[in-house]
């Protein structure tokens, strides 16, 4: 066989066609929206149930946190252990999680077990009992887990950033305090469940080796009787306007690294700027081949994994630029990070940079949705946000239209240092003075 010339880099072939999964949808009489996609590959099925779950009090945050830990602790027909065993017997998993806007129940099972998995889900929805002894134990466990989380730099940085960006709005609350957790009773959890675990406004997505019509029928059979009666809706107030400027410093004595974060408002997925911003941000710090990685990692060795991306909440989108940098280079790392932001907000990116970022975003969207689990999570989020599966076709098309000029305009609007605020978690005694040369420091305690 003839050898290839090692000095000649092979060209890329034509990109694979983008295929958008066919989604079968149905809205049940009780208001539950259901979407199903057939995706073979392995004989498994994935489910995602998303429910509006926002609250305006810290007590709600604490209750939601305990609720996600105890939702599977017992039902009318099962105690915690037998429920877990029943899920396991399906080759399954079932779990709950929440953010400031949504409660999400995620599960999977062997495809042949979709109906019994939905049956167990319906049982939890209908009759989760939050037994007092289970709730007591889980509360104490949560208190310990929260204490651990609050000594972890990444958690502290996320918490500090939320406080800096959202002030007293519920989006500022990251973790409940031990006292708030201990105040949650099982009666409160049952009330919360009754008021908020409702099919109205909820979305269930099923993806896997199951015919969509059969999946929709199975959902209707299991969850058609789920009642929306007694439902309470809660609307969050608008978050405060982002106040840019300044450096907030959380002191972590002895920290061998500083968690450096820069935040600014970002565009929502339905913003006309979104595709152009995504490309500019990718070039800036959105992937390994970005300018910021080249600068503060591959040139200067200040850090292991710099990154920039968007946190999408329902009423706010936040750009978060982050790097954990060695303590002694905190100030120069902040200078370089701000420089790269300023540069991309001031000068158009190159055509090659733009094209590489474009192929990356299109390619990784295809990769992220190539597995059942990845497709289920992505699709549930898209449909719930009102973008729908069409986004999987429309976003690549929008990316294709971005020019260096429109990317520059989006970067000027969304990546300008003047629009951003800085948060540092690190050893104030060491980094305070060098960083003070770069801007006014405000101590922040959590």
């Amino acid at each position, binding site marked *: *066989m003839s*050898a*290839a010339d*090692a*000095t000649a*880099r*092979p060209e890329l*072939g*034509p*990109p*694979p066609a983008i*295929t958008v999964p066919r989604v079968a949808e149905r809205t049940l009489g009780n208001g539950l929206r259901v979407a199903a996609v057939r995706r073979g*590959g*392995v*004989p*498994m099925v994935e489910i995602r149930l998303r429910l509006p779950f926002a609250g305006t009090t810290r007590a709600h945050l604490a209750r939601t946190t305990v609720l996600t830990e105890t939702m*599977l602790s017992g039902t009318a027909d099962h105690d*915690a*252990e037998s429920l*877990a*065993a029943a*899920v*396991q*017997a399906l*080759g399954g*998993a079932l779990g709950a999680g929440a953010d400031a806007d949504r409660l999400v129940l995620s599960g*999977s099972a*062997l495809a042949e077990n979709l109906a019994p998995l939905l049956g167990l889900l319906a049982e939890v929805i209908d009759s989760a009992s939050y037994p007092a002894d289970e709730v007591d134990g889980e509360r*104490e466990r949560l208190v*310990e887990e929260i*204490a*651990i989380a609050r*000594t*972890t*730099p990444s958690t502290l940085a996320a918490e500090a950033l939320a406080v800096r960006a959202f002030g007293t709005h519920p989006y500022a609350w990251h973790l409940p305090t031990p006292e708030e957790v201990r105040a949650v009773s099982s009666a409160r959890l049952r009330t919360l469940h009754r008021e908020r675990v409702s099919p109205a406004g909820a979305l269930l997505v099923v993806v896997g080796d199951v015919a969509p019509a059969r999946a929709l029928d199975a959902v209707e059979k299991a969850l058609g009787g789920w009642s929306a009666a007694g439902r309470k809706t809660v609307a969050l107030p608008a978050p405060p306007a982002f106040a840019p400027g300044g450096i907030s410093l959380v002191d972590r004595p002895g*920290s061998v*690294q500083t968690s450096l974060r820069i935040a600014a408002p970002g565009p929502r997925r339905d913003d006309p700027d979104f595709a152009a911003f995504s490309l500019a941000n990718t070039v800036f710090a959105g*992937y390994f*081949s970005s300018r910021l990685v080249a600068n503060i990692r*591959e040139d*200067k*060795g*200040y*850090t*292991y*994994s710099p990154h920039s991306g968007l946190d999408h909440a329902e009423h706010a989108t936040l750009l978060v630029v982050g790097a*954990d*940098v*060695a303590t002694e280079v905190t100030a120069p790392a902040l200078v370089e990070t701000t420089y790269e932001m300023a540069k991309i907000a001031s000068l158009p990116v190159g055509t090659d940079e733009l094209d590489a*970022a474009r*192929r*990356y975003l299109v*390619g*990784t969207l*295809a*990769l992220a949705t*190539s*597995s*059942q*689990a990845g497709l289920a999570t992505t699709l549930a989020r898209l449909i719930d946000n009102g973008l729908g599966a069409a986004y999987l076709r429309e976003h690549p098309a929008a990316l294709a239209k971005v020019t260096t000029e429109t990317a520059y305009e989006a970067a000027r609007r969304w990546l300008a240092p003047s629009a951003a605020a800085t948060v540092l978690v690190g050893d104030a005694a060491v980094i305070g003075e060098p960083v003070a040369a770069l801007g006014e420091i405000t101590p922040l305690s959590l």
Partner: protein
Amino acid sequence: MPAVATPVIERTTLGNGLRVVVHEDHAAPVVGIAVYYDVGFRSEPEGRTGFAHLFEHLMFQGSANVGKMEHPRLVQGAGGTMNGSTHPDFTNYFQAVPTSALELTLWLEADRMRAPAVTEENLANQVAVVQNEIRVNVLNRPYGGFPWIELPPVAFDTFPNAHNGYGDFHELEAATVADANDFFTRFYAPGNAVLGISGDVDANSTLTLVHQHFDDIKRRRTPKRPSFAEPAVTSERRGEITDAHATAPAVAAGWRVPDPATQPEQHLATVVLAELLAEGDASRLQQRLVFRDRSAISIEAYLGSFGDPFEQRDPSLLTISAVHPPGTSPDRVLSAVQEELDRVATGGVGGEELARVIARLRAQLLKQRDQTIGRTLALTMFEQQHGRAERVWELDERVAAVTADQVRAAATSMTADSRSVVILKAGVR
């Protein structure tokens, strides 16, 4: 559960010794490409802890026809992802790319298989990057190296098994370009590597591309696979550390597991045992310690340093690791674990329980296989470690064949005398 057909896998060995496996999977227009070199941190020289991992970083610094950062730029700029990782017994490099980038990726892997371009400058740079990796993953957070760094020096006596694979800062700083060149010459021969490809490709034309790009890489001497064998532990060993960032104490215990190469059935029964002990809320240790006694905040059980039971050669451990409330003593945690092990060893495992544990394990294997990267890594690893990529699909049936008696026997060998224990004291409070 429906039977899973074993797929057709094409394989060849090139004249230079490189082993190649190609698996067709047409579910999505993507392909995974992985290269496994048969050298991990167990093989790094004394005085150079962390070198295998540092060298992994150097493999991304460019080669004869590829500039610094160009490998990631070309892969990501083609719409793909890439990474590498260093394990006790191998170092892997992997990409998931649109099928349009198959040949480009093969070219990139071939170019660095000829030799990376290591310079004083990029070596110093990557030492600093690795030190920051260690800071973020180990030094600056609670439970950073626990227990994968902390347990081996208690459980093992010889340098290869006992030392810290992330490395000592001073030893990392002492690394030279000559060390890197020696390491490459010794361990990165094509005959010491396996190239695995899985995805939406035609196997025959892919093999043709592999020949075109890899055939001219010179054959070099392949190192002999060393034995890292150590005598069994016959009386309990203990160590203790203080974690300056931890608010709650923790304890980890490790037991030697059957050699996956010579005792595959016993080894697999131990995998099922770990699943039965701590995977999911219905498992024995979760139920007993986390939910009933409330003597643990979290508990896990797994084989191998990083949780893949099949990737590590003998000797390796089954590790049970728990974070527990400050009011509970580590010995209370250990006693409860030992009681539960005894309960399996003497009381056995019921048919219903074994069936659901196996159902869950098989489902987890299926989920791994559904992901391009997970499938590619698994089949390349099985080809290298076990000479059989097909094992990815055969595992399903093998796991299903594990019996209650085999699981009971696996638990029988996990006595208090044969364990190695590390106690982590919480530095905060």
